[in-house]
């Protein structure tokens, strides 16, 4: 069975729990005392991931770190629909990779702000927030133009991709870092669409979608 080195309050761990739920995959969660215990910096964990970061998975002898890389692996290995990671469509595949990188940028800004405010990490909080707003503006514009074309997801197409899963957690948790989503209506609508996907699950700090509004 897939083993996930996991911390409940980590958005990057959550994106894997979320995606595995959507794929209907069973996995074993190995809890890591990320805070306050800093177990991800312990000797035994550094032998698993020398970067000292969560998440990491183990599957069939493969040890893989980096949330975005793990999403790619899980989709390519287990998604029989071949929609989440569209390997047969080079253009969309390139776009997915582009937005996976963008998700790393969200982690470096919005997630860093959340770690600063909630867990007292030493960060330049104003730089984190400014950086997150810059990315949210780009994402909001992109989603808004997509909506005009009838597209619900980050990468154009009928179905969501792992780009949506990669970007969602630290967008939905942004207020814990003092980053309001009030000025990003297209992002808010997209968050609600993600929450209505089959297999959606929550983490601490994320609430399920309310009942759908009558048309």
């Amino acid at each position, binding site marked *: 069975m897939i083993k996930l080195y996991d911390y409940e309050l980590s958005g990057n761990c959550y994106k894997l729990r979320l995606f595995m739920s959507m794929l209907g995959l069973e996995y074993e969660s190995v809890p890591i*005392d990320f805070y*306050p*215990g800093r177990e991800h910096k312990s000797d035994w964990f550094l032998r698993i991931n020398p970067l000292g970061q969560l998440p990491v998975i183990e599957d069939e002898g493969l040890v893989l770190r980096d949330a975005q890389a793990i999403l790619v692996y899980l989709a390519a290995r287990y998604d029989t629909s071949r929609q989440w990671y569209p390997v047969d469509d080079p253009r969309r595949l390139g776009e997915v990779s582009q937005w996976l990188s963008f998700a790393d940028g969200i982690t470096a800004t919005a997630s860093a702000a959340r770690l600063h405010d*909630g867990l007292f990490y030493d960060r330049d909080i104003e730089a984190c927030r400014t950086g997150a707003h810059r990315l949210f503006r780009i994402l909001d514009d992109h989603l808004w133009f997509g909506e005009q074309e009838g597209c619900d997801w980050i990468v154009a197409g009928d179905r969501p991709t792992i780009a949506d899963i990669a970007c969602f957690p630290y967008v939905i948790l942004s207020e814990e870092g003092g980053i309001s989503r009030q000025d990003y209506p297209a992002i808010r609508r997209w968050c609600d669409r993600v929450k209505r996907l089959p297999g959606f699950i929550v983490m*601490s*700090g994320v609430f399920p979608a309310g009942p759908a509004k009558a048309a």
Partner: protein
Amino acid sequence: MSNATHCSDRVALDLWHPVAVIEEAAPGLVHATRLLQEQLHYALFADGTAAVWRAEPALRIGDPVEPGMLPPALPVKLAYGYVWTSLGNPPAELFAIPEWEEADRRRLHAATMGVKVSAPRAIENFLDMGHFPYVHTDILGAEPHTEVKEYDVDISVERDEILATRCRFFQPMASTASSGGADVDYIYRVPHPFCSVLYKSSPVDENRLDVIAIFVQPIDEENVRAHMMLCVLDEDNEDKIIKRFQQTIFGQDKPILENQYPKRLPLDPRAETPIRADKSSIAYRRWLRDKGLTYGVIPAAA
């Protein structure tokens, strides 16, 4: 920062406040925190003592220090795993938690978390059972078991604390030691304006209660550090599993707390409309009003 931005509330200044986790601070070095808008430095020493002082330029964060070379120190107490201090004239004793001394209990610091809320709002939420099924779904509550049954609240004049008893709630998973849903008995104590101690049925011993405390450190009137202490009966689970349970619960409360409006707790009885389930909240607000606390609250109109 000028003095005008400092806390001038005598009640808040004279309290003991938790400012640091004993096990997290490397001994012999200067560490920093904030309390009531003031920058404080502190150090723990190899002999088990601690010192807290108002930050001054001569000693910087990370500098090595010894007990003999410190600036004028603030009052200090070490209790329940934390360093406590005061910016005023604190009482001789901190409130008692006798269960802390019981040898077979697990004593754990679950986490300290920063929350954008006033200290009284954080305590009031801790006292509220009505949100369990909606915020802690399938852990501390579940629909359709949403009713908060009648319970008793007393303000003890002698001990100067609030006591809510006979609280009972159906919980699908009351703790890491639970094997399924159960009606769980709760007792809440509020022995300090910014601290609360919860006692709940132990799944492993029907005659004893687990203790979960929240000690809130006010950074300013609308930001806190919440320290979570556990003193529980559980022989099976690793520390990190017990901590994860408490962090999961608190992580669910966090967005609720941070979206409270106004962030300061209104003490005017007409400010918010309580229901019967809010009895402990009504008593808490009245108790704060009677103390004359003004920090982190919106005082009642005279």
